[in-house]
């Protein structure tokens, strides 16, 4: 059953031993589910601590080739290298903080969504921790390396394990092994010594729950995975539930809800646009983005509750009450927490108001749907007043 052209992660053996059902995803052999099944895995992550292998994603470090030793100056220098590619304010990031941002093309379309973090330690200033998507990582890394030129070196870290631990019990589980993590606030990260190795632990994730993403050196990754799994509050979670969790959380999936034709405004990701960068005019696609910010926008990403019938999947058409096709579903499925189908899709602004009644067309049948706010299920991030 295994396809030899697929890449494996450091944890592939662990997935097989756990009875994971393996599928091809972004060129990797990954577990879509384990024997307990997607619904129970989903509920487990909402109630306890779900553990995900996300090693197929693209963690990397960008470091100045010749840091001066002045932390602020070195951070400003590395920020200047990467900012032209993205829409976010990296210069203004405080030490130890992580930011969700977007790589943009000249037309203001999204090349990828990614995380960029500024190290906490003074000795690490002039470096950035970057995590990009699996399916786009090679292209992203070549863009970043090209922009860095000789001034900084990009080092891929995707031969290590990236483990996500998500859910209300994630913090008590992980802090039993790595006590320092309890002090982290949402969207902060630290390098933490563990078993003679360094972990990079961020308090972040893509499920809407509190939790962590942990970069674990390959040499200790299987042991680290097993150690977490030995805690009875932890269950392994496959890609199937990862998708239903992020869908309920209203989080877009790159390549489905967002792609190179979609702008940050259309995607509802305007929060990621730094005012300073947009005002400076150096942001890629700034003309389109500024125009769209005034309301002149062709389509917007909306959340839909499918009120009866089958789940609306990616590609299902969205029609108005008169039957005119006005948009398309970009991801959708059954929401286990709500016991009902939900979807995301794009419609013209006139149809984007909450409460708007639309239809989704499934196998030739029009099923009623309603535009609703996202997230579909409230986020429960661990936000702290300071840090």
């Amino acid at each position, binding site marked *: 059953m295994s396809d030899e052209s697929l890449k494996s992660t450091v944890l592939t053996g662990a997935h097989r031993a756990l009875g994971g059902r393996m599928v091809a995803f972004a060129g990797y052999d990954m577990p879509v589910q384990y024997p307990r099944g*997607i619904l129970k895995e989903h509920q487990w992550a909402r109630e306890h601590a779900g553990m995900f292998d996300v090693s197929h994603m693209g963690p990397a470090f960008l470091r100045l080739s010749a840091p001066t030793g002045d932390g602020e100056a070195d951070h400003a220098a590395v920020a200047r290298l990467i900012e032209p590619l993205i829409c976010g304010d990296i210069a203004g990031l405080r030490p130890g903080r992580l930011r969700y941002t977007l790589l943009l093309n000249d037309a203001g379309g999204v090349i990828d969504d990614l995380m960029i973090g500024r190290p906490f330690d003074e000795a690490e200033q002039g470096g950035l921790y970057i995590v990009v998507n699996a399916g786009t990582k090679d292209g992203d890394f070549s863009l970043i390396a090209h922009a860095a030129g000789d001034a900084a070196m990009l080092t891929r870290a995707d031969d290590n394990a990236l483990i996500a631990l998500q859910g209300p019990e994630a913090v008590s589980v992980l802090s039993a092994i790595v006590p320092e993590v309890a002090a982290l606030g949402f969207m902060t990260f630290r390098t933490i010594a563990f078993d003679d190795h360094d972990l990079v632990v961020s308090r972040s994730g893509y499920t809407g729950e509190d939790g962590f993403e942990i970069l674990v050196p390959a040499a200790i990754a299987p042991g680290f995975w097993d150690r977490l799994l030995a805690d009875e509050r932890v269950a392994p979670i496959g890609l*199937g539930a990862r998708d239903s969790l992020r869908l309920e959380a209203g989080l877009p999936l790159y390549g489905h809800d967002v792609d190179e034709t979609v702008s940050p405004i259309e995607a509802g990701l305007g929060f990621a646009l730094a005012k300073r960068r947009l005002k400076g005019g150096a942001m890629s696609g700034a003309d389109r983005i500024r125009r769209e910010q005034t309301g002149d926008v062709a389509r917007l990403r909306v959340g839909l509750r499918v009120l009866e019938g089958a789940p609306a999947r990616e590609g299902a058409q969205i029609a108005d009450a008169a039957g005119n096709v006005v948009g398309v579903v970009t991801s959708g499925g059954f929401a286990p927490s709500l016991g009902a189908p939900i979807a995301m899709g794009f419609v013209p602004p006139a149809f984007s108001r909450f409460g708007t009644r639309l239809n989704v067309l499934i196998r030739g049948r029009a099923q009623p749907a309603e535009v609703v706010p996202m997230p579909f299920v409230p986020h429960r991030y661990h936000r702290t007043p300071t840090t």
Partner: protein
Amino acid sequence: MRFSKDHEWVEVDGDTATIGITAYAAEQLGDVVFVELPDPGKSVKAGEQLAVVESVKAASDVFAPVSGEVIAANGALGDTPETVNDGPEGSGWFVKVKLSNPSEVDGLMDRAGYEAFLATL
């Protein structure tokens, strides 16, 4: 009970056939969250689409293993689609069909034959 290579089962009682999906199919689909069944009165032909099963992951077609007229659909699957996972070869039946060509049943596998077929997958 007789079985198709598309993983449907048929239980014949007189000229009526009860049709569902096999335990193997239910296991492969995973958690079933929606089942679209034909309305009674509809004619179905062997090999053509009979129903659609939606799991959390995806939608899958269910094919009619025999031809005939649908005389009943399992209403319980509307409110509790998980019945398909709980009792695929019993309470999770899909439809009852009045057979138009009972000899089609002879072309289906018996349990031993189906299990041998599964072993080749």
